[in-house]
């Protein structure tokens, strides 16, 4: 019986041919990679036509909570500048109001992301101990969970440290929105792709300030270089006690808050 099996196995290809065929099939599997090869966005040392070289910059933002008056001009300017849908629930940046009462109760609100400003709260104001405003924005994390989870690599980090979404590439799976601990992302209702703050990338490559920074009447927002000692942002960080949001998640945010309160979340 054993002998019989051996005999018939001659009909099958020998081991060498089998391995050769297997090898060439595996090589064939790689063909799409070359056929559909795309430009590698990461780490490229490109410069823009105006001479701006992303690799020479590294950006962050400082926010001084004690300076914010909650006027919401930043939220409005952002919507105008970046074609963010006007209807509620879509924000690249917004402002939160924190009211801390005598009994320790914390009331947080952000009606329409503060785009219409704040109205006096209905709670009896006499018990109010502290009242402050916290502007929120994409934290442009150094270890962005959104970039990690994107299945097609549509969201990526530029050499100047800004996290962007390639809307041509985004398939709209919303995994990045789930992965963002800061609620900074939303699904653009018309484009059906993920969208978020870009630090106004189209402006900063022309060496202009982001729209929200430019309109802020109290200079509560400071945009600039993180790795250049002479930059106002570095000075701001040196002169103030700095905090970031949700540090335990190890996302390493690059939006730095001064005069931060433990109630902020």
């Amino acid at each position, binding site marked *: 019986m054993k002998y019989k099996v051996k005999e018939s196995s001659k009909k099958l290809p020998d081991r060498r041919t089998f391995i050769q065929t297997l090898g060439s099939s595996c090589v064939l599997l790689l063909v799409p990679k070359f056929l559909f090869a795309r430009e590698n966005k990461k780490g490229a040392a490109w410069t823009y036509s105006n001479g701006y070289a992303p690799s020479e910059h590294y950006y962050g933002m400082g926010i001084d909570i004690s300076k914010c008056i909650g006027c919401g001009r930043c939220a409005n300017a952002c919507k105008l500048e970046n074609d963010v849908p006007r209807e509620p629930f879509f924000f690249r940046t917004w402002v939160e109001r924190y009211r801390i009462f005598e009994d320790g109760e914390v009331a947080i609100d*952000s009606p329409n992301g503060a785009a219409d400003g704040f109205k006096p709260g209905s709670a009896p104001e006499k018990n109010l101990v502290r009242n402050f405003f916290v502007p929120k924005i994409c934290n442009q994390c150094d270890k962005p969970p959104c970039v990690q989870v994107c299945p097609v690599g549509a969201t990526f980090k530029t050499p100047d440290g800004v996290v962007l979404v390639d809307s041509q590439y985004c*398939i709209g799976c919303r995994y990045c929105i789930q992965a963002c601990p800061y609620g900074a992302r939303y699904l653009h209702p018309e484009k059906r792709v993920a969208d978020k703050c870009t630090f106004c990338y189209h402006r900063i490559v022309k060496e202009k300030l982001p729209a929200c920074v430019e309109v802020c009447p109290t200079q509560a927002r400071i945009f600039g270089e993180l790795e250049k000692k002479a930059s106002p942002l570095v000075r701001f960080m040196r002169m103030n006690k700095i905090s970031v949001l949700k540090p335990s998640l190890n996302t390493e945010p690059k939006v730095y808050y001064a005069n931060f309160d433990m109630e902020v979340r």
Partner: protein
Amino acid sequence: MPILKEVSGYIYPNEIELHWGILIVVYPYLTGLVAGAFILASLVKIFNVREVQATYRMALLTALAFLIVSPLPLLTHLGHPEKSFEIFLTPNTKSAMAMFGFVYAWYLMAVLLLEIWFDYRRDIILWEKKESGIKKWFHKLITLFSSDASEQSLTFDRKAIKLITIIGIPSAFLLHGYVGFIFGSIKANPWWSSVLMPIVFLFSAIVSGIALVLLIYMVVTPMRGKEIDMACLNKLASYLFYVMIIDFSLEALDFIHRIYESEESIHILSELVMGKLFVSLIVIQLLIGMIVPLLAIAGVKLFKAPDELRKQVYFLSALLVQVGIFSTRWNVVIGGQLFSKSFSGLTAYKMTFLGLEGLLMSLFLLLLPFIILYVLFRVLPPWEEMREAQ
């Protein structure tokens, strides 16, 4: 905005609408059934359990029918389904989701289709010889024009099936453990972020898969005018019972662990569980979907109930288990998005009826595997009496 009335506490402004709706509930439910049905089939093959032999092929075909449908809810949910092929062409290797296509393809091509093919090969060759017309050609096509039914080739088939089953079990674990990983690896969400998530997903998958095969067996057998084999049914119910015990323990462990650790999210999560998820989690998932069927199956076994009563109890229990597992998926997917990542507010889920991501579409996707299964039963009858005598 009417939804604002349902919002309590403070939630980030971008969080008012849920991003993953009912389709993403359907997706892990369907994949769970695939993995569960396959693992049941593997138990039959590897441990050679005679009693449940009758459900072996049925379980394989069930797994296939549900596997065919399982990527569809993902596809319909995408904002740009036409770009979905990018996942295959330029996957981000760091993304768990990018691996879906590869895990899926591996499972479909290297496990399920191969195993079914090897298992049916001899029978199809013999059927095709007696048939004529389209059916003959169709069967010829699916044997890939092999007509070797010699003893030697059959020995090879048997060996191949054994090997595929051995590779298949970890693959089935991978398939559903992977789905659990998609959720379990999101550190931003304390309801999801847990190492136990893939394991809980896996065992609930096995529970749902066994219950489904039991249901299909109990419905199809009388429809074919045959007697239900009580030995087989008892064995299936026992499997279901044991796996449910494991699943229950794991879920309890996860629950106790969360309470004991009491991380900063504990307040909002307990508010969620006692509020918006109370009915779907405590009442449906735990009580109706888990404790009632467990007690019922234990009851009929303990008190040696007559066959007729057993059948009814098994059938109802398996149905309740399906409801329970579906609500498990619901509570994970929807529950995980009802609270804000600010941990200080809750939102609500408004399901649409029509539309690509609505209820009707989900019902269609839940029904579709049964239509496919009907066709598969026609083309590849899994019934014992259709096995050609050796």
